[in-house]
């Protein structure tokens, strides 16, 4: 593959600047986006750029909360069931590990990777990048981590996992006594905090903030 970086020039500025719509390729200039406002494509109406309220502090605070909830929801059991005196409980990872015990490794990966691993990488990766930007710490590899996070985000299925837990819960209530564990409540809260984090974050703005610092990771 012959890659040529020499011909590329930087055009984008800060919150305003030249943008190419990712959906329809319309080239347009965006004037400053007010906090809380959204810039949409003049041609197809897709979102080009958001400038969420709360600056950098809100997403960082939410990310710290998400990281704590992520630990709790993964360490503590999601639910206990009791059938005829026999008790069983499981954690999120335990629900995947049962497939390893049953020698179905692919299925275990299909559950654990989107349900636990990818959300974990996204939360802690963003925490690392945001922390570095917000406190001017200049951590190494922030750009590489941000690339990784934006590639993996579509494959994070924590919210789908929660829906699965809820459906399983309804099925089990008919058969057994079910006691919800701390992990369940942590997971419920995590989904809400995670959604709030994602809506308070604009990756374009993170890239712009990383640009202001001397490149620490590439080349």
């Amino acid at each position, binding site marked *: 593959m*012959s*890659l*040529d*970086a020499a*011909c*590329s*020039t*930087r*055009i*984008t500025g800060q919150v305003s600047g030249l943008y*190419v*719509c*990712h*959906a*329809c*390729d*319309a*080239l347009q200039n965006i004037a400053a986006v007010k906090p809380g406002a959204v810039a949409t494509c003049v*041609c197809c*109406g*897709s979102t080009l*750029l958001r400038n969420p309220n709360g600056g950098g502090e809100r997403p960082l605070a939410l990310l710290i909360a998400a990281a704590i909830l992520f630990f709790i929801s993964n360490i503590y059991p*999601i*639910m206990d*069931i009791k059938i*005829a005196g*026999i008790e*069983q*409980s*499981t954690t999120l990872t335990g*629900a*995947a590990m*049962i*497939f390893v015990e*049953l020698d*179905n490794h*692919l*299925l275990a990966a*299909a*559950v654990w990777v*989107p349900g636990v691993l990818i959300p974990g990488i996204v939360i802690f990766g963003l925490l690392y990048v945001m922390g570095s930007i917000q406190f001017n710490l200049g951590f190494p590899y922030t*750009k*590489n981590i*941000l*690339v990784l996070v934006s590639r993996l985000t579509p494959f994070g*299925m924590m919210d*789908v996992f929660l*829906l*699965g837990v809820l*459906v*399983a819960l*309804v*099925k*089990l209530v*008919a*058969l057994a006594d079910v006691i919800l564990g701390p992990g369940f409540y942590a997971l419920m809260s995590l989904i809400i905090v995670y959604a709030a984090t994602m809506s308070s974050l604009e*990756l*374009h703005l993170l*890239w712009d903030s990383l640009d202001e610092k001397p490149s620490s990771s*590439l080349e």
Partner: protein
Amino acid sequence: MKRQFIRAKDHGVAGCHTCGQVVVLGSHQQALCPRCGCAVHYRKCNSLARAWALLISAFIMYIPSNTEPMMYTSSLGQQGADTIMSGVLYFLSHGDWPLALVIFSASVLLPLLKMIAIAYILIMVQLGSTRRRIENTRLYMLAEVMGKWSMVDVFVVSFLTALVQLGALTTIEPGPAGLAFAAMVLLTMFSAMAFDPKLIWDQTE
């Protein structure tokens, strides 16, 4: 009403898929984004061929994921096999229609609608249609985000299997449909990602 918009490609520039950086490509087909280091193209490479290949594979996996059993239950010596549809019918017969609706739409209807939507957009692009571009772009965006919800039944089975391991009393084991399902969901997601929505806008009116 036909306003003409400037297409980045006509001016030799392209937007980076990862970080949004506007990069001047000129006559080059590919360059490295100066900001994030990812490859930048005018259009995703072999977009239509890759999207079709992944979509057809996804459709092939859709068949076993609905016909094969999702899980095996054995309760006091009695053996049973559950497919997606038998689970839906079980909830319906118990009057639990909201849950039946969730499972049916997430596992049966949604993947099918998503595959039809992608196929429709691919055909429209190949026919060079310029009709309903905004609607088709929205349809594509919708198909891209809703795909992952079909995984819900795989998670349900993993939870039930982990919890219901009560020796001779009751045990639940996963069936072959679980893996087919996961493969189908991933393949439809890859298919949607392989398609470049900018192709919808490439035909001049």
